[in-house]
C-alpha cells in the first residue's frame, strides 16, 4: 500500500463534514449519554415501564440487569416508595426504564400517568410476575394471614397470590386499552416470570410456562387474550419468559421452598434471553 492511499473514506470529504460524520458513527454512545443525562435530571419520556404486584422483585430485577446487584455492598431493597428511573442499553439503543411501585400511592399514580398519558415514546411494558411465590414483608400481617385467614401453607399462599395477580393484571390491561383508545399504545408487552429459582424443576417450569403463555388457557392468559383481541394482536406483541434476579428461599410458616437454579450460569442465560427477547421486539 502506498503512503497516499486513503484509509478512511471520510478523508476525502471536506473537514467541515467530518464532525457530523463522526457524530453519526458514534450515535449510539451519544444517545446513551443523552439518556443518562435525562435520567439524572429525571426528565425524558418513558420508553419501557416495569409493572407488577408489590414484592414480585421489580427493583431487584432492574438492579440485576443493570449489574448493580453484583456489587459487594448491594443489599436487597425495601418497598419502593418512588418511581425508579434508569437508562439501560437494550440492543444498540439506550432506553429510559421506569419502575413503578407496586403499592397504591400517589407516586404510583403519577408514574402510571406519565407512562401511559404523557409519554409519547412508550415502547413496551414489562409485567413482572412470580407464579404466586410472593412473600409478605410485614410480620404482623404475615402472622394474621397464617393464623386467622388460614393461609398457612405455601400452596394456599400461592392460590391467594395468583388471585391477586389476576386482579392486578386486569387493571394494567385496562390502562393498555385506554392508551390504545388515545392512540398512545406501547408496541410490546413482556411477562417476566421472576423467582424461577423456586420452580426451576422441569415440570413446575413447564406449568408456569403454560400458565403465563399469551395463547394459553389459564385464567391469566384469558385476561391477556381479552386485551390482545381488543387492541389487535398485530398492534401489541406479547411474550413471556422466565428470569431469576436473586436466589432466595421462600419461608412460610416453617415450610421452606428451596431456591434451586443450578448456579450463576443458568441465571446469566436467562438474563441473556431477556435482552434477546426485547431486542427481537
Amino acid at each position, binding site marked *: 500500500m502506498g503512503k497516499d492511499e486513503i484509509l478512511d473514506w471520510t478523508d476525502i470529504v471536506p473537514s467541515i463534514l467530518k464532525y457530523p460524520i463522526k457524530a453519526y458513527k458514534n450515535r449510539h454512545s451519544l444517545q446513551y449519554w443523552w439518556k443518562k443525562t435525562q435520567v439524572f435530571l*429525571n426528565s425524558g419520556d418513558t420508553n419501557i415501564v416495569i409493572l407488577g404486584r*408489590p414484592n414480585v422483585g421489580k*427493583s431487584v430485577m432492574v*438492579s440485576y440487569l443493570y449489574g448493580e446487584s453484583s456489587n459487594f*455492598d*448491594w*443489599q*436487597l*431493597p*425495601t*418497598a*419502593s*416508595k*418512588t*418511581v*425508579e*428511573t434508569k437508562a439501560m442499553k437494550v440492543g444498540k439503543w439506550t432506553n429510559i426504564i421506569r419502575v413503578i411501585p*407496586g*403499592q*397504591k*400511592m*400517589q*407516586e*404510583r*399514580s403519577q408514574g402510571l400517568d406519565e407512562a401511559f398519558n404523557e409519554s409519547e415514546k412508550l415502547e413496551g411494558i414489562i409485567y413482572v410476575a412470580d407464579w404466586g411465590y410472593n412473600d*409478605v*414483608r*410485614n410480620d*404482623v*400481617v*404475615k402472622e*394474621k*394471614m397464617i393464623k386467622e*385467614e388460614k393461609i398457612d401453607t405455601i400452596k394456599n399462599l400461592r392460590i*391467594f397470590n395468583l*388471585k*391477586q395477580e389476576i386482579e392486578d393484571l386486569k387493571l394494567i390491561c385496562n390502562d393498555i386499552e385506554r392508551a390504545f383508545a388515545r392512540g398512545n399504545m406501547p408496541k410490546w408487552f413482556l411477562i417476566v416470570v421472576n423467582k424461577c429459582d423456586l420452580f426451576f424443576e422441569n415440570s413446575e417450569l413447564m406449568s408456569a410456562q403454560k400458565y403465563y403463555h399469551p395463547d394459553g388457557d389459564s385464567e391469566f392468559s384469558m385476561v391477556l387474550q381479552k386485551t390482545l383481541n381488543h387492541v389487535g394482536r398485530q398492534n401489541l406483541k406479547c411474550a413471556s419468559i422466565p428470569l431469576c434476579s436473586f436466589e432466595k428461599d421462600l419461608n412460610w410458616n416453617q415450610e421452606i421452598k428451596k431456591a434451586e437454579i443450578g448456579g450463576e450460569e443458568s441465571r446469566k442465560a436467562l438474563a441473556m434471553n431477556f435482552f434477546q427477547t426485547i431486542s427481537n421486539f
Partner: protein
Amino acid sequence: MNENIRLTELNDLIELAEEVSSNVESIKKRYTSLFFYFVLITSFFAIVISLYIYIYTSKNAEFVKFQYTLLIALFLGLFIYMIMLIRLLNERRRLLFKMKNEYMILSDLLEMIHSYKEVVFEDLSIVKKALLDMRLNRISYRGFRGYENPLNEIMGRRQVDHG
C-alpha cells in the same frame, strides 16, 4: 362480623398513614422555610459587613465619622446572628428528628397497609374497594430528597429510594 373488624382495622391504618403523610409534608415545609430564614439573615449580615468594608476603605471624610458606630453595630449584629444561627440549627435538628420518626412509621405503614389490603379486599364490594384505593392514591410515601431513609440506616440497608 369478622369482615367489619378487618375493614375497621384497615381504615385505621389508612387514616394513620394519611395523618403521618400530612405531618411529613408540613415538616418538610417548615424545614424549607427554616432554610429560607437562614439565607435571609446571612444575606442581611453579609450586606452589613460589605457596607462596613466599603465605608472603611472609603476616602470620604463624612463616612469616617460613622466608621466606629458601624463597627459597634457590626459586633452587635454578629452576636445576634450567632444566637439566631444556634436557634436555627437547634430547630433544624428537632425537625429532622421528628421527620425521621414520622418517616419510620410511614415506611412500616406502607408495607402493612398494602399486604393487609389484599386480604381484606376479597370480601369487599366494588365501591368500597374503589374508595379505599382512591384514599391510598392520595397518600405520598416519598422521603425527603437528600435525606437517608432512617429505616435503611437502622436495618443496615443500602439506600435505594431514588427521590
